[in-house]
């Protein structure tokens, strides 16, 4: 299939998709096309779609691509939908999540040691929101559960993959330097 033929079909699929669409799924739908063709078409679609002055963009998220509204129109979109801003995670949950994201796989005891406070409630919230998942057990006495971030974590924070996170060292500014 010609790339110009493929492109609007990809757009339609990305439009209806609930989750980020990855090249593997597209390959299943277009078994006769090479990965290269699919990725070239995707790239071209993103370039063109995102350079038009439209209301939506196609972004790379969690190993796939996803269509969303442009953030700058959030006020008007919210006014139409009559929704309040979504429930935000508490600072405790975000801190726990940061520890898990940067230290994964990690046990509850290790999280406690780093945060210097109990984190089980925050962890439960994160598990319920599927931002964090059980990824195994540590081979030490008691075999504690190991936690890691999920694919949903990438989606929730609009990340392509974990390597897109700044390194922890980039946050090393000393206490008091900036707030």
């Amino acid at each position, binding site marked *: 299939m010609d790339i110009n033929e493929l492109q609007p079909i990809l757009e339609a699929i990305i*439009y*209806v*998709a*609930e989750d980020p669409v990855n090249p593997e799924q597209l390959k299943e739908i277009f078994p006769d096309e090479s990965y290269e063709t699919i990725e070239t078409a995707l790239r071209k679609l993103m370039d063109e779609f995102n350079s038009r002055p439209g209301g939506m963009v196609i972004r790379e998220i969690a190993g796939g691509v*996803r*269509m*969303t*509204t*442009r*953030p*700058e129109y*959030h006020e008007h*979109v919210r006014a139409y*939908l009559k929704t309040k*801003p*979504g429930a*935000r*995670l508490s*600072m*405790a949950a*975000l*801190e726990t*999540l*940061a*520890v898990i*994201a*940067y230290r994964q796989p990690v046990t509850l005891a290790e999280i406690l040691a*780093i*945060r*210097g*406070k*109990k984190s089980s409630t925050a962890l439960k919230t994160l*598990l*319920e929101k*599927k931002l964090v*998942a*059980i990824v195994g057990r540590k081979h030490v006495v008691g075999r504690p559960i190991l936690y890691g971030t*999920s694919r949903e974590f990438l989606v*929730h*924070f*609009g*990340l392509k993959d974990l390597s897109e996170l*700044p390194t*922890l*060292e980039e*946050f*090393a*500014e*000393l*206490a*008091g330097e900036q*707030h």
Partner: protein
Amino acid sequence: MTTEGVPASETGAGDSLTLTLRLEGFEGPLDLLLHLIKREEIDIWNIPIAQITEQYLQYLQVMKDLNINLAGEWLVMAATLIYIKSRMLLPPDPAGAAQEELVEDPRTELVYQLLEHQKFKNAAQMLYTRQEVENAVWNNPPREVMEEAREVVAVTLFGLLRAFHEIVKRFEERPVLQVDQEEISIEEKIADIRRLLLVRDTILFSSFFTEAPAKQHLIATFLAILELVRLREIWLYQKANFQEIHISKGKPSGETA
């Protein structure tokens, strides 16, 4: 370096509204310490430990005055600070110092803990900002194409566990058929225990004796447990002497699947 204590408005319980607001920000002892260090513009590599300890303890006192429940970690940190302070006061033992290559500053571990904590606080801030951006965008697939996916849940291991937890809760809340309060038989008690062991691996021996309404129940329960032990459906064990007796399903051999 300033040596002034905590300003009056932050020590006395007089200005309690500001205090409450301020204290709410400190989720844990490390947050409070970082705040104190920032406010006093202290060099983190040279913390005046006596001053910081004093201020920390004053905050703890204020929290106690305000009836704020202090979690154990606050007291652990107080103990740590006092310990470091006492170590700093001791003149270095010349004999010991000679043996060790370098006498470690008793504050070092705490400093690294604080620096690490600060990094994660900053990382959390970054996640917060990203979340704000994501909260401003919508992804809205047309509803009709999703119909096949309605009323289904994607399953995680945690989801599976939570489902089981809910079933167990529901199970335990189910009313048990009570035929006659007075005539409770051993057979009925055996059935009760078997029923409970359907959803639990172990039951505390004592749990049978906390809510039993009458002496007959206690005796019937006790005899039922003995009978089930004889039938080898259950076994009893203690993790240590004088600890709770557990009732467990199956054989003590502890076979695994």
